[in-house]
C-alpha cells in the first residue's frame, strides 16, 4: 500500500509514509505464502522534516491513530518498521536512563511502548508486535539494529517464516 501523512505543529513538521516492501527479495516459499493469501507487507517510515522541539504526546497520538486506522482498514496488512539510526532525535527525553541509549534502541523502545499502550487503551486483541534485534559486535565494538513486525495473529505464521528465514540466513 502507499499512504502518506504530514503533521505540522508550529515549527515542527513530521512526515509519515507507509509503503509496500519489495517481497521479491524473500525466498520463494515465503513469497508464495504472501501472494496466495494477498498479504501486503508495508514499511512504516517516520521522519521529522523541521523543528527541534520535543515531540509531544499529541503528535505521537496522531501518528499512532493514523497508522492504526490504516491497519484496521487493511485486513491483510503487516507493518514492518526498522528503527533507524540515520536521523538523530532532537530534544529527546534523557531523564530516565536514556541518555546513552543509541537512537535506534530508543526508537525501538518507544515503538513498543506506544504499541502496548494503544492496544491496552483501545482494548484491541489479536494483533502482535514482534521485535527483532541484531547485535553485531566484535570485541565489544559494533552496533545493534532493531526491527518490528506488527501483524494480526492470523498472519503470525508469515512473521514466523520471516524470523526463521532471518535465522537461517544468519546461519543460526
Amino acid at each position, binding site marked *: 500500500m502507499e*499512504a*502518506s*501523512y*504530514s*503533521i*505540522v*505543529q508550529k515549527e515542527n513538521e513530521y*512526515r509519515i*509514509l507507509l*509503503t509496500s516492501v*519489495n517481497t521479491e*527479495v524473500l525466498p520463494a516459499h515465503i513469497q508464495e505464502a504472501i501472494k496466495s493469501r494477498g498479504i501486503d507487507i508495508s*514499511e512504516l*517510515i517516520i*521522519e521529522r*522534516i523541521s523543528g527541534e522541539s520535543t515531540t509531544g504526546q*499529541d*503528535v505521537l497520538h*496522531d501518528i499512532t491513530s*493514523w497508522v492504526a486506522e490504516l491497519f484496521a482498514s487493511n485486513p491483510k496488512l503487516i507493518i514492518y518498521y*526498522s528503527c*533507524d539510526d*540515520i*536521523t538523530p532525535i532532537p530534544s529527546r527525553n534523557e531523564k530516565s536512563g536514556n541518555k546513552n541509549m543509541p537512537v535506534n534502541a530508543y526508537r525501538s523502545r518507544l515503538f*513498543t511502548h506506544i*504499541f*502496548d499502550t494503544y*492496544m*491496552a487503551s483501545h482494548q484491541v*486483541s489479536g*494483533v*502482535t*508486535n*514482534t*521485535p*527483532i*534485534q*541484531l*547485535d*553485531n*559486535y*566484535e570485541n565489544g565494538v559494533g552496533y545493534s*539494529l532493531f526491527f518490528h513486525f506488527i501483524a494480526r495473529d492470523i498472519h503470525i505464521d508469515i512473521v514466523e517464516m520471516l*524470523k526463521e528465514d*532471518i*535465522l537461517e*540466513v*544468519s*546461519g*543460526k
Partner: protein
Amino acid sequence: MAYTKETLVISNPSDKLLKVVERLRTHKRTQLEKLRNMKSEEFSRRVILS
C-alpha cells in the same frame, strides 16, 4: 495481556544477513529522501495541530 512478543536477538549476524539489512537501509534512505522532497499537496492526509 502481552501484545509484544519477546525480542528475537541474533548475535553476530552473518555477512549475508548484514548485506540484506544494508539493502533495506539503502531502500529506507531512498524513501526518506522521497518523503523529504514530497510536496504538501502530494500527501494523502495533512493536518496542522495547534
